[in-house]
């Protein structure tokens, strides 16, 4: 593992030049056990420029960032190599690795500042926010007087777009929103006019709209203060937005480095190419997850599927639904078997229909008059930011949340609110895949045992036939039947999510509800899961409700797009139509905020 990979470089900005403020060369970091985590990383940061450091989880990007500050997390230690810094005003450079504790402390927070990933965890909850900024100034002996320091606190707060008054400074972190907390973090970092800024995924936990504001703040502050920034992220789209140069990391190696446009448009290293191919683009020009073969065939083929827009015919179809419901209850079983050729009932009633679904907890209206329909083989994306009610809605459809008003119908038959009260066929008809693959499988039971549960509970087949069905499902999610006896702990995130999808498939459902199923996964794994879902739709004529916060995925998976904002569907229609001609202000803002590729 200790052999150093040659980095693909697009230019010679990494060579010594007077703009460079921080240079990392041949940096190696070890675990306490002696395993090498970073295998010799080289990069340089120049004044007024942001270098994006991209990599998926486990690539060592945060370790590299913290090593620039001479900080190593529990269990890690410095191996070899050098980190040199040229502070403003100093004639000579400092070698970070050779500094003692005191000198290192002087450097941190004043010359090199850090902006952490999760502001909610990184601000001291028991200290007022103004005090936390002031602390930096006090420690590093900013200015000459109390007055000067107090003024600087107010000034830097205003710089990041927050009120600088006393009242605001006296707030506690929990009284601020996520975006405001992150801006406090940024203010803290800029308070001492640092030379170098290490930004560790500072926008990961934030909504798209908040993210774009925070990114603007960072960008503007970096330029105004002429700071060299290292922006660590897994999100290539953000990189394109914020940084001038980009360096790509893969398992402790820096594989490619250069100006953003050069690296992202003409990637040389295989890994960068793969990564670029896996990133979903809003325009949908590429097919993520597999070769460019099948292209957009799916999207175009489904052009003719009829769409009921939420504004249409409120009373009429509810009545016709009533009429049909008698006949449908009997037809339920037949329909699930002969659903492909479309029985009499399913020809008139949509496969899945949500009507006037509403849900409120006390005064908080979580969902408000939701109307949605889904036809066989069709995929609708339910798009919303956190708190929009998208998960609640999908759980109402799946019968996991029974507090809603309104109705959910499957082939025209109104479903009971709770899955426990639904009939066997209805339960089998709608399957739900959970967001986190790390939580949806019982760690104490084997994959086979977990996947047999749906069959067991619907009372299908014998033990042997169930096993066969489960193995088939494992094959169809491309895991293979060897996974039958393994436990979730042995599987990676992507593998677990495949197993969870297989669990939803064993009962041969007609509707699958996928709740943010790719958001916990790395972008390359996300791409492969999206590709899998596309294949499954074709193979099984599966209708899908794909819930996500990631608008960029829309063209890659969905025929229809429903945009959910504060419990209301504000835009609903064929994907292309909504994206190209959004009718609602909110949708337009969303599209504008997406970092473009």
């Amino acid at each position, binding site marked *: 593992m200790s052999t150093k990979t040659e980095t693909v470089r697009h230019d010679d900005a990494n060579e010594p030049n007077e703009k460079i403020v921080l240079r990392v060369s041949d940096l190696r970091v070890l675990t306490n056990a002696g395993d090498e985590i970073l295998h010799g990383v080289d990069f340089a940061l120049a004044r007024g420029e942001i270098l994006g450091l991209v990599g998926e989880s486990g690539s060592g990007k945060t370790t590299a960032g*913290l090593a620039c*500050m001479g*900080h190593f*997390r*529990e269990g890690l230690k410095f191996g070899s190599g050098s980190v040199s810094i040229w502070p403003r005003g100093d004639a000579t450079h400092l070698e970070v690795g050779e500094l003692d*504790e005191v000198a290192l*402390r*002087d*450097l*941190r*927070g*004043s010359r090199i*500042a*850090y902006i*952490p990933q*999760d502001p909610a*965890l*990184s*601000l*001291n*909850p*028991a*200290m007022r926010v103004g005090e936390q900024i002031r*602390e*930096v100034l006090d*420690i*590093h002996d900013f200015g000459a007087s109390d007055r000067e320091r107090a003024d600087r606190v107010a000034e830097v707060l205003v710089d990041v777009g927050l009120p600088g008054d006393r009242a605001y400074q006296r707030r*506690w972190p*929990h*009284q601020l929103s996520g975006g405001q907390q992150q801006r406090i973090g940024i203010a*803290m970092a800029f308070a001492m006019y640092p030379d170098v800024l290490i930004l560790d995924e500072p926008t990961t936990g934030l909504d798209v709209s908040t993210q774009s504001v925070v990114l603007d703040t960072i960008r503007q502050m970096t330029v105004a203060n002429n700071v060299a920034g290292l922006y660590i992220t897994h999100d290539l789209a953000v990189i394109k937005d914020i940084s001038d140069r980009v360096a790509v990391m893969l398992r402790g190696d820096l594989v490619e480095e250069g100006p953003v446009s050069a690296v992202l448009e003409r990637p040389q290293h295989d890994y960068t190419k793969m990564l670029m191919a896996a990133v979903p683009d809003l325009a949908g020009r590429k097919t993520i997850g597999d070769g460019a073969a099948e292209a957009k065939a799916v999207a175009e083929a489904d052009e003719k599927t009829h769409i009921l827009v939420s504004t249409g015919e409120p009373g009429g179809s509810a009545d016709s639904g009533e009429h049909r419901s008698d006949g449908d209850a009997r037809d339920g079983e037949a329909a699930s078997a002969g659903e492909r050729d479309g029985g009499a009932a399913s020809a008139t009633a949509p496969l899945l229909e949500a009507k006037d679904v509403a849900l409120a907890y006390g005064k908080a209206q979580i969902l408000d008059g939701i109307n949605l329909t889904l036809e066989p083989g069709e995929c609708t994306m339910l798009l919303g930011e956190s708190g929009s009610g998208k998960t609640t809605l999908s759980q109402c459809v799946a019968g996991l949340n029974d507090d809603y008003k309104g109705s959910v119908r499957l082939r025209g038959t109104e479903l009971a609110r709770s899955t426990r009260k639904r009939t066997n066929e209805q339960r089998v008809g709608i399957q739900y895949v959970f967001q986190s693959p790390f939580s949806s499988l019982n760690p104490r039971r084997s994959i086979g045992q977990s996947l047999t549960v749906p069959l067991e509970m619907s009372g299908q087949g014998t033990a042997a036939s169930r096993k066969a069905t489960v193995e088939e499902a494992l094959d169809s999610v491309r895991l293979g039947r060897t996974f039958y006896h393994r436990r979730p702990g042995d599987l990676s995130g992507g593998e677990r999510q495949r197993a969870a999808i297989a669990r939803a498939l064993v009962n041969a459902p007609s509707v699958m509800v996928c709740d943010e199923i790719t958001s916990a996964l790395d972008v390359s794994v996300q791409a492969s899961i999206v590709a899998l879902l596309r294949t499954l739709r074709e193979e099984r004529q599966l209708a899908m409700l794909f819930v996500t916060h990631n608008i960029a995925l829309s063209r890659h998976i969905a025929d229809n797009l429903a945009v959910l904002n504060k419990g209301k569907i504000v835009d609903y229609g064929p994907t292309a139509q909504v994206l190209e001609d959004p009718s609602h202000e909110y949708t337009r803002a969303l599209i504008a905020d997406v970092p473009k590729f």
Partner: protein
Amino acid sequence: MFGKVIGKRLIFSAFILLAVSLLVFGATLLLPGDAARAILGQQATPERIAALNEQLGLNDPAWLRYLHWLGGLFVGDFGTSSASGGPVSELLGDRLAASFILMALAAIISVPLGIGLGVYQALHRGKRRDQTMTGISLVLASMPEFVIGIGLVALFATSVFQILPAVTLAPPGEPVWNRPEQLILPTLTLVLVVTPYIVRMMRATMIEVLDSGFVEMARLKGVPEKRVIMRHAVPHALGPVAQVVAIQLAWLAGGVVVVEFLFRYPGLGQALIDAVTYRDVQVVQAISMLVAAVYVAVNLAADVVGILTNPKLRSAA
């Protein structure tokens, strides 16, 4: 706002005490058959039994006796001891003070000691001294208090050294603090029993806090290590540890029983053992209520500490 939360807790505490009083009183209803005969024994004459029944008010219905008893508690009337014949409050008066001295001494020593050692261990986690201290506290926390007490007696009062009194020397009536040396071993026993729990909890909480994002952030801001610990880390660990300290202090109220018996210390515990032996129900009830009151009081104190160290609770209040 702050007062409102405390008020809520106070009401809740009162509710707990009321429920405990029901429980304590209800238990006596389980006394088999004829309580007076059970107390006086098989040879008792019917006149004596009748007299005792009258004296204990056993002829009234249970709820009336309960209300009477409960009402008495509020005015310091704990009933009449069936063993001594005198009022329970008189019997317990001096003993309460003696027990309180012991518990207070143990608390004053073990709380700061436990917190200090816990922080020290957390800062040196994984090193040899941490492991040694963890081992010692585990061993101490395992053993029942009388085992530790006898160990100390064997070591300091009898077999090895004979430098401290093995039992309380004060004659009845003399305040225990007149001879401070007799307080040393009982206090030390309680300290050795209570401190390990506080140390372990403080160590675990501190480690958690030291691993948190805001402590890392403070270090990356260049905050000196001493300030990182005193200003950023320790205050966060105090809230959860206050709960454990409360449980331990409440436990002291029970553990003191065994220690007092071992050292023949004239406190509540000794009185409780005597009362249990003679089936002196009124005394047992009274002491149970006192102990429960201690529990409620220290828990209330822990809640206050928890609220004071957490601005989220403070401002939500």
